[in-house]
C-alpha cells in the first residue's frame, strides 16, 4: 500500500530522516511517536506525496511517487484521507460543505444521510452550518477527521488527531479509527499520547513506530 525503501529527507539543511525502510500493509494500524521536531509530520507528508524523498524510493499504491504527475497525486489523495496537525479549511464555507469537499472536488454527489451520520459520529451534528473560524480546536480536529474519511479512503493518515481533545472525545475518535481499521483501512496515527496508544492496543493489534535520531524504529512492547 505504502512502501518506503531507504528513504531520506532533508528540508535543505542536514538530513532530518535517514535510511527509512518500511511497508504499511493493507489493513494495518500504526502509531507514530517521537519527540517534537523528530519528523513525524514530515514522515506523513512523504506518505501522501506532499513531499518527495531526497533519497530512496516511496511507493504509493504500487507506483513510485516520483513518477506521479500532478493529476496522479490528486487522484492518490482521494484514496488517502489526511488529518493535518494544523487543520485547514475553506473559511468561507460552512462546516458541512468543508467536510464534503473531497466529494465536491471529485465531482461526486454527497449522501445527505451519510453526512448527517458522520457529523453526528464526530459530535458536530449541531454545527453543520457553522463557519470554520468559529470552531474550537477540538471541533476543527473532529471536522478534519470527518473530511478525511468521507471519501472512504483506503488509507487514513492522522497527525495528532487528538491533540486538542479531552479524553472522552479522544477515545471516541480512537474507536472510530479502530472501526475503520476493522473495515480494512490502513491507519497511521501520529501522537504523543501514550495512554491513547495503550488504549488502542486493547482494541486492535496496533504497532508502534518511533522516530528518533533520524531513524524509524519499531518500538517494543515496553509501552
Amino acid at each position: 500500500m505504502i512502501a518506503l525503501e531507504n528513504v531520506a529527507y532533508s528540508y535543505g539543511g542536514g538530513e532530518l530522516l535517514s535510511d527509512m525502510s518500511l511497508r504499511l500493509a493493507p489493513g494495518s494500524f500504526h502509531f507514530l511517536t517521537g519527540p517534537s521536531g523528530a519528523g513525524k509530520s514530515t514522515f506523513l507528508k512523504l506518505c501522501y506525496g506532499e513531499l518527495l524523498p531526497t533519497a530512496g524510493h516511496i511507493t504509493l499504491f504500487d507506483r513510485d511517487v516520483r513518477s506521479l504527475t500532478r493529476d496522479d497525486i490528486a487522484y492518490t489523495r482521494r484514496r488517502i484521507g489526511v488529518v493535518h496537525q494544523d487543520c485547514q479549511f475553506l473559511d468561507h464555507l460552512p462546516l458541512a460543505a468543508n467536510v464534503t469537499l473531497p466529494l465536491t472536488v471529485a465531482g461526486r454527489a454527497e449522501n445527505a444521510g451519510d453526512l448527517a451520520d458522520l457529523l453526528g459520529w464526530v459530535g458536530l451534528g449541531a454545527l453543520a452550518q457553522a463557519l470554520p473560524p468559529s470552531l474550537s480546536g477540538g471541533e476543527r480536529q473532529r471536522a478534519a477527521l470527518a473530511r478525511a474519511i468521507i471519501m472512504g479512503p483506503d488509507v487514513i493518515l492522522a497527525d495528532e488527531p487528538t491533540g486538542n481533545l479531552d479524553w472522552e472525545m479522544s477515545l471516541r475518535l480512537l474507536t472510530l479509527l479502530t472501526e475503520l481499521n476493522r473495515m480494512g483501512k490502513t491507519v497511521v496515527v501520529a501522537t504523543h499520547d501514550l495512554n491513547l496508544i495503550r488504549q488502542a492496543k486493547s482494541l486492535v493489534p496496533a504497532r508502534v513506530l518511533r522516530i528518533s535520531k533520524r531513524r524509524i524504529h519499531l518500538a517494543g512492547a515496553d509501552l
Partner: protein
Amino acid sequence: MMRRPAFLRDEGKGDSVVPPSGHTAWLTSFTAAAMAFLAVFALALSLAAGSLAARWQASLDRTATVRLSAPEDQIDLQTKAVLATLATTPGIASARAMTDDEQRALLAPWFGPDLPVDTLPLPRLIEITEDSTGYDGEGLRQRLAAEAPGAVLDDHTRWRRPLAVAATRLRLLGFMSIVLIGTATAAMITLAASAALAANAQVIRVLRLVGARDVYIARAFVRRFTLRALMGAAAGTGLGMVGVWMLPSADSAGGFLTGLGFQGAGWLLPLLLPPLTAAVAYAATRASALRKLRELT
C-alpha cells in the same frame, strides 16, 4: 449528450470553493467595461473610415479635363495636337473632344439653352479617361504646354486621392486600436487573476489536499473571471453604443464626422464585443491559473 463548455460546467458546488474576492472582481469588471466602451468607439471609427474611404474611392471616377483656349483659327489645330499628345501618354485610356452640343448642355444650367456657343470664345473641353495605372499629371502638363500653349489640364478629382488613402489608414488605425484594446484587456485580466490566485494560496492548498486536480481549481477561477469580464464588457458595450447613437447625425454635423456611427446591420457588430471579451478572459485566466498552480505547490 451535449457537453457544455468546460467553464460553464459545474461539478457540484463548482466555483463556490473560491471565496468571493472583493477588489479583483471589481477590477476585472471595470476593466472589461472600460475596454469594451473604448472598443465600441474604435469600431465605429474603423467602420466610418472604411465607408468614407470607399465613398471617396468610388468618386475618383478616373476622369479629367483639358481646357483649351486659343484664337479661333488655331483652335482646331491645337485640339488635334492635344489629342495626339494624349494618345501617346501612358496611363490614358481615351481622350475625346466634346462637341458643341455637349458643351452647350454642360453650360445650360448656368446660361440657359440658347447660348450661342459658336460665337462666344469658349474654351474647348477635352475629356480624358484614365486607365487603372493612372498617368503622370506633371509630365502631361509639361508636354501639353509644349504642344498646345493654350491647353490646361484640370484633374479636379485628384485632390481626393490622398484623402481616400488617409481614410484607409484611419481604418487601419481603428483596427489596430481594437487589437491593442484586446491585448491590454487580456493583460489586465491576467494580472487580476494571478493576484486572486496568490491571495487564495490557502484555499488552493486545502483543495489540493483533498484531491482537487489543477483543472478543477483553475476552472473555479476561470469561470468567475470569464463571467465578470462578460458582464463588464456587456455594460461597457451598452454604454458605448448609447454614446455612438447619441452622436450628432450625419445631416446636422456634416463634414468629416459624417457617418461616424453604425449603419443598419453594423449595429450588430459591437454586440460581438462581450463574447469576444469573455473568450479573451477565459484564455488569459486559464493560462495564468494553470501556470500559477504549478508554481504554488
